[in-house]
């Protein structure tokens, strides 16, 4: 999908469903039939759908934790460096390294960094922003953000073969099955 890769044939074959239950059943059936490069599209998150297409783990929590720790350390270091090392101020006779006073800023910086980690991490792992994607070539796909549910078997799947995928898709009782052009 990267820039410069020669593009030929189809991206995959897409089946359209009316309700989340059909999509979930279809995704489970497709994985049982041995297809690996699947994706499912829905207008809202469906519990268990990512398991059904064989995706159960995300590194996001680790990213957020790491960012939170970095943020907290940076916040504390900033206060300590400013008020102990480079510009020491005597405030009410307190020791220069009066660390409890820096906890609020340490905490705020930890939250700030972790929140950026959550949002930017989620977008980066999802490969967003991505203005072009082959699924948008299917006219009916605009209903994926309204009330329709889609399953795509990608052409890069080792088991992919147009005729057999069409035949398999028909067993799932979809509303419609179409090619997804690049």
């Amino acid at each position, binding site marked *: 999908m990267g820039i410069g890769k020669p593009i030929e044939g189809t991206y995959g074959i897409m089946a359209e469903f009316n309700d989340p239950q059909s999509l979930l059943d279809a995704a489970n059936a497709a994985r049982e039939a041995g297809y690996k490069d699947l994706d499912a599209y829905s207008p809202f998150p469906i519990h268990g759908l990512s398991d059904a297409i064989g995706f159960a783990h995300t590194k996001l929590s680790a990213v957020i934790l790491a960012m939170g720790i970095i943020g907290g350390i940076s916040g504390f270091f900033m206060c300590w460096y400013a008020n102990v090392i480079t510009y020491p101020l005597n405030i009410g006779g307190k020791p220069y390294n009066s660390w409890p006073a820096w906890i609020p*800023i340490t905490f705020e910086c930890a939250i700030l960094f972790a*929140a950026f980690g959550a949002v930017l991490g989620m977008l980066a792992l999802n490969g967003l922003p991505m203005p072009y994607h082959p699924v948008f070539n299917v006219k009916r796909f605009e209903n994926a953000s309204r009330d329709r549910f889609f399953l795509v078997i990608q052409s890069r799947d080792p088991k992919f073969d147009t005729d057999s995928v069409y035949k398999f898709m028909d067993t799932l009782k979809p509303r419609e099955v179409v090619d997804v052009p690049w």
Partner: protein
Amino acid sequence: MAERDQHPQHEVRPTTQAAPLPARFIPSPMLEPGHNFASVTDHISSIVLRRKMPLGWVFLFFVGLMGVGVLGLTVTKLIFVGVGIWGINHPVGWGFDILNFVWWIGIGHAGTLISAILLLLRQEWRTSINRFAEAMTLFAVASAGLYPALHTGRPWYDYWLFPYPNTMGIWPQFRSPLMWDVFAVSTYATVSLLFWYVGLVPDLATLRDRSRSKIGRVIYGAMSLGWRGSAKHWHRYEHAYLLLAGLSTPLVLSVHTIVSFDFAVSNLPGWHATFFPPYFVAGAVYAGFAMVLTLAIPARKLFKLEDFITMRHLENMGKVMLATGMMVFYSYVMEAFFSFYSGNTFERYMWTNRVTGPYWKMYAMLIVCNGLAPQLMWIKRCRTSTTWLMIGAMFSNVGMWLERFVIIPTSLHRDFLPSSWGMYHGTIWDWGMYIGSMGLFCFLLALFLKFLPMISIFEVRTMLPEAQAHAEEH
């Protein structure tokens, strides 16, 4: 359709009871029955994309615009002349500027509470109002941020508040609660914006797909970042959203705690109190829910959203107002108790002066607004009537402003030496800026209602009974 007469299936109802429950024990639904994915999507997105804005919106827009004009005028005058145009002087150096800052930032807290804390507590009724409340948070924080920025007197030097390496070799004093405030408020504004935007992305994709105009498709398309609703994306999205809620929850509590430190860390009678952080947080939630009600009641009427913002939502908000109003009132009682129990002459004098001194009318009105008015919410008929809820909410909006007035000028106006006593009144420029900030709030709100979906469409879809799907056991 026969289905429409049935109760929505997502309502949990006892099945073991033989006798039907009396109607008063059955909660009204979170979503009126009869909707499906398409109708929910079309109804909410058509407000942005198709329908003409109702007259009430036009009114809000122009009132907001006039307010922005007043704000521009007062800020221009302030920058040319200085903070001397305000009523602040010795001994009251903190007046409307800090008062309105705290008032606005408190209002903002309900948005985060609804979107984050109620999400973690699995309160599904939050779904219809969270987008709206988060927008309110952002605009309230924007209005709040004006005040400390302008109170510096030379706002073009406001960047001095932030630590940056400079040729003067000086750094901010990080032991000061005012510096903590800079970090708390700017973090709060940033995280609220991120949370709001992340919540908007799938709905922006809906608007992109539903928009008929080229410009709409391009703008919503760019803002939706190419969201396509992939199951993998949803998986990470829900993960990120839940963790953001988990991060926002301690954040929102910390922000008003730190705002209260601005007062509590000083040595002034009336401010120097350990119960200030919980007192301020409860007050913020109370004020914020009142403002959500103030905005949601007219909005659901104007945009015909009674199916989505049902009486259940309004009643629940009334209950939260009652609970937090009582916490606030408890703090007033504790404040009186501590001032006498401390055995400190100045503490005792401060409280007596607050209640019987020259500002006694403010204190009396405060007790009426925040002590008595919320008690209306004990009565179910008041909790389920938009008129009474609106009256209750108005009392708390005013009451929370009075509370900050009572805390700030009355603690300051009689200094330790009688030679340093004085009175504080806001000048026309103080009031102008207050009205102006309300105008800014209304203006931003009007733009939000026009250009973005005011109810989270994808989350409402998940509340429909047909959204439930279960994997078969293999």
